């Protein structure tokens, strides 16, 4: 198969499957998550390169992937809804110290994940110290603390 099609198909497939898996699949939260991502990258590489180890194929594939990325960036700029659908939007999961359970259940995030992010970013100890926790588009959790006056 032409390396351009191979690269394009793999790019679109990965985009779709990670979107289906959910935001948290992209963030390396545990050793196992990291392992899965590493194995996926190895499988992807084999699928894209196949038996063609030529320099030309490598250049074609790299150009294809970057072109796909650029094309999607341009489409996202033009069509805001496309960006929202493909990349998602941030989601507030803690509101004024209160965990929004339904939202956390839907996104497979639990309080431990939020507290971990709060400790790592700001050294916060309790959920009550968190004004907002936002599940970002890339699967990370941003913490906004209460103003200390």
């Amino acid at each position, binding site marked *: 198969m032409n390396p351009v099609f191979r690269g394009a198909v793999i790019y679109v497939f990965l985009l779709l*499957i990670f979107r*289906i898996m959910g935001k948290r699949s992209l963030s390396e939260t545990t050793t196992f998550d990291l392992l899965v991502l590493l194995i996926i990258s190895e499988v992807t590489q084999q699928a894209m390169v196949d038996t063609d180890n030529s320099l030309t194929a490598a250049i074609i594939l790299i150009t294809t992937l970057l072109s796909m990325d650029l094309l999607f960036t341009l489409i996202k700029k033009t069509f805001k809804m496309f960006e*929202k659908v493909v990349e998602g*939007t941030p*989601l*507030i999961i803690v509101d004024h110290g209160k965990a929004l359970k339904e939202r956390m259940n*839907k996104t497979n995030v639990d309080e431990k994940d939020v507290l971990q992010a709060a400790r790592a970013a700001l050294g916060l100890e309790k959920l009550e110290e968190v004004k*907002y926790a936002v599940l970002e588009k890339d699967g990370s959790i941003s913490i906004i603390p209460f103003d200390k006056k």
Partner: protein
Amino acid sequence: MSVSPIKNQDLPVEDDIALHRKGWVVQRIGWVLMYVFLLAAILGLFGEGPLSDRKLQHGDVTMQFERFGRYEHAMMLRLQSKTQNIATVSVPQAYLKVFRVSKIVPEPQTQSTSGGYVHYLFSSEGGTIINFYVDPVQRQSVDAVLRVNALPFHITQTIFP
């Protein structure tokens, strides 16, 4: 369990809950499709499983092959006869455009072509089991009639990319 928008939110974040709700439905459907796809793969829809295994019989000659395969992934065609030796196997040249024969066990004595077929002739002591090891080199379906001791075997195979 409905998910509500946040009231009096003072954080300038586009918390589009309506879009999230739709996304979660699509996501759940995607998960189901993923597992259905995996189950189909385990069962052999893309090769190597019960959905793919095929056995054809003419008299006491049987042909075992896989209905589904994957590009450049080795496959095997097994020909077996209970009572008689398999003397000739004729494979259409159109079939050989899709499959590359990498090995035949036991090896044929001679090969010849005529009438759009490649004829493999085996010795009289060739035995009652012959294995053709083939590699798909085209991503397409093939519909062909192979002949074993002049008996026709109509096989259909689909090769996935």
